[in-house]
């Protein structure tokens, strides 16, 4: 009884459990990749993910052979799952960058232990996101026309279009996420190089670490670069999601043509991103025995962030209903009423319940610290955010300004296969990273522990 009371007082305040030493963290985290035998859960998870990835390859292969006609898209709903998936994946990616870049700038102590998981997640989320708009192009092999390259047709891309802004934004974001992730890994790769006992590990990590020595010159320039990268990545996250919102807001479609879309999409991105980080952190702190450095404080902070993002998004949901009636624009009202009671009503209400109603449980401390329940809530949010993107894409298009063309969207088995397969791509990549790179930033934990312990 007294123990329980003591625990609840302290558990959410400590970013590191007592007894954790810098060398302890370094040895444990690097041995996870260098020494520990591959656990059974990894093989099970990796096997299932690879199966889904196989499905993705089949779905994309068939798409390349037959064209986008295998999907349910048609007029008027010409943007189907591919665009919903794109917005969903790029949104989840942003959560990882927000944690590693934004909370680096705010000097949040809890960031150190979770940043590597968040950044690794981002890398594979943007990979999934980047594929979607390309396969959505009917003639995907012309996608390089988006680049302003000198060509014999004397053509230029339309730089004024939000769709082209989006191409530039995603390109910069993909490159930026990779660079940010890799630069932040270099000191840890050097630690792996120096701790490795097998020859192939020494060669692999020796090459990846690029010869990092940890000299004062290296650290000095590293600190400067990392600060700049964080300061660039934080606005890039906001910009990419604003631009994704503008993709929709720039279209003359009822329910899309809204000035609130850029922040609306940023809030949604943050919500789904925090949810994915929670879904990874909760099982990994157990499976990799990281509960000494990823404490209940981290779980609590992430849950609070999830609640905050949910409230911000709920405000946008309310505004989305209010504005059409305030303007009195007939077609926009039609879309709102269609969401409430029409073809997509079950989806619409599911997103409200999963993204706005259920996360209100996080006001209660007992829920925030109950990891299985928190995992379920976060999973609900991830599903709910996909549904939100799907409703935005399909519902508005199926009730556009021309009533003669109203028609709903019906996904085919290939739509679902592409969605499930992209999850396979993400999970396969993440499972592989689990065995190759340290899942906690060791040098940041050494710095944090030194700062916390004081001189010694």
């Amino acid at each position, binding site marked *: 009884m007294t123990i329980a009371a003591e625990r609840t007082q302290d558990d959410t305040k400590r970013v590191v459990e007592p007894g954790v030493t*810098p*060398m302890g963290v*370094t040895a444990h985290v690097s041995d996870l990749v260098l020494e520990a035998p591959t656990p059974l859960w990894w093989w099970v998870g990796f096997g299932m993910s690879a199966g889904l990835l196989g499905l993705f390859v089949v779905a994309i292969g068939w798409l390349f052979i037959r064209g986008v006609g295998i999907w349910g898209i048609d007029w008027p709903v010409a943007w189907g799952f591919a665009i919903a998936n794109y917005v969903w994946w790029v949104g989840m990616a942003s959560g990882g960058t927000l944690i590693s870049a934004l909370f680096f700038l705010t000097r949040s102590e809890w960031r150190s232990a979770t940043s590597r998981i968040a950044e690794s997640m981002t890398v594979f989320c943007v990979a999934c996101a980047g594929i979607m708009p390309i396969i959505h192009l009917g003639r995907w092999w012309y996608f390089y026309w988006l680049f*302003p390259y000198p060509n014999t047709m*004397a*053509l*230029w*891309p*339309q*730089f*004024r279009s939000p769709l*082209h*802004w989006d191409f*530039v*934004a995603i*390109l*910069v974001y993909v*490159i*930026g996420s990779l*660079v940010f992730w890799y*630069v932040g890994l270099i*000191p840890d790769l*050097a*630690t792996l*190089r*120096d*701790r490795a006992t097998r020859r192939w590990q020494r060669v692999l990590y*020796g*090459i990846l670490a*690029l*010869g*990092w*020595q*940890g*000299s*004062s*010159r*290296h*650290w*000095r*320039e*590293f*600190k*400067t*670069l990392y600060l*700049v*990268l964080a300061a*660039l990545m934080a*606005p*890039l996250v906001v*910009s990419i999601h604003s*631009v994704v919102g*503008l993709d929709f807001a720039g279209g003359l479609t009822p329910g899309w043509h809204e000035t609130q879309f850029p922040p609306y999409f940023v809030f949604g991105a943050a919500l789904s991103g925090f949810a994915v980080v929670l879904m990874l952190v909760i099982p990994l702190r157990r499976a990799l025995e990281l509960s000494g450095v990823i404490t209940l404080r981290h779980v609590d902070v992430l849950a609070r962030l999830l609640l905050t993002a949910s409230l911000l998004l709920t405000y946008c949901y309310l505004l989305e209903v209010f504005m059409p009636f305030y303007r009195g624009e007939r077609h926009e009202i039609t879309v709102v009423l269609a969401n409430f009671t029409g073809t997509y009503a079950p989806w619409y209400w599911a997103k409200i319940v999963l993204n706005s109603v259920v996360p209100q449980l996080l006001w209660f401390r007992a829920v925030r610290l109950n990891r299985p329940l928190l995992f379920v809530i976060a999973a609900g949010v991830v599903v709910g955010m996909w549904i939100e993107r799907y409703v935005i894409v399909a519902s508005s298009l199926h009730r556009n300004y021309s009533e003669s063309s109203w028609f709903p969207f019906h996904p085919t088995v290939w739509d679902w296969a592409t969605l499930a397969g992209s999850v396979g791509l993400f999970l396969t990549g993440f499972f592989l990273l689990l065995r190759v790179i340290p899942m906690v930033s060791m*040098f*940041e934990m*050494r*710095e944090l522990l*030194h700062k916390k312990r004081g*001189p*010694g």
Partner: protein
Amino acid sequence: MSRVLVVFDSPDRMLDALRRLREAGFARLEVYSPQAVEGVDELLGRRSRALPLVIIAAGVAGAVGGFLLQYIGMAVHYPLNIGGRPLNSWPAFSTSTFELAALAMLLVGTLAFFALCRLPRLYDPVFEVPGMERATQDRFLIGVDLREASIDRERLERVLARFDGVRIEEVPE
């Protein structure tokens, strides 16, 4: 014998030794540590000067170049009259201008970081020193260049006499 590494087991002892070496007139010093240690740069009197300037220059070049790319494409090479709207529609160019400036800063900054750190450099004589592998884990090393005039090993050992248990290792040529 031209360079040696002095091995410490805590950042504070290393900083103390570094301060004493500086006071004793040692100038060609370098520190190897598993994490950035606050105070080292001040003692060595070094700062990251070039990198911020390079990154700012890259940002300006990226912004100007990015804007010109769009301006030339939309207003000079391929002008499209859409309802009489101005060809130089700069507000519509602003998003990509920002993105391209950020891209230039990211890439040039990272390349400049590699150049300033002389990376990639997979082999360096310091890697031969026994104990250097701990510099990425839990040891804090001071590299001393003994080729300096008036600096020799006895003088180094005199300064370090107060620190018991420190190892001095030679760096092979």
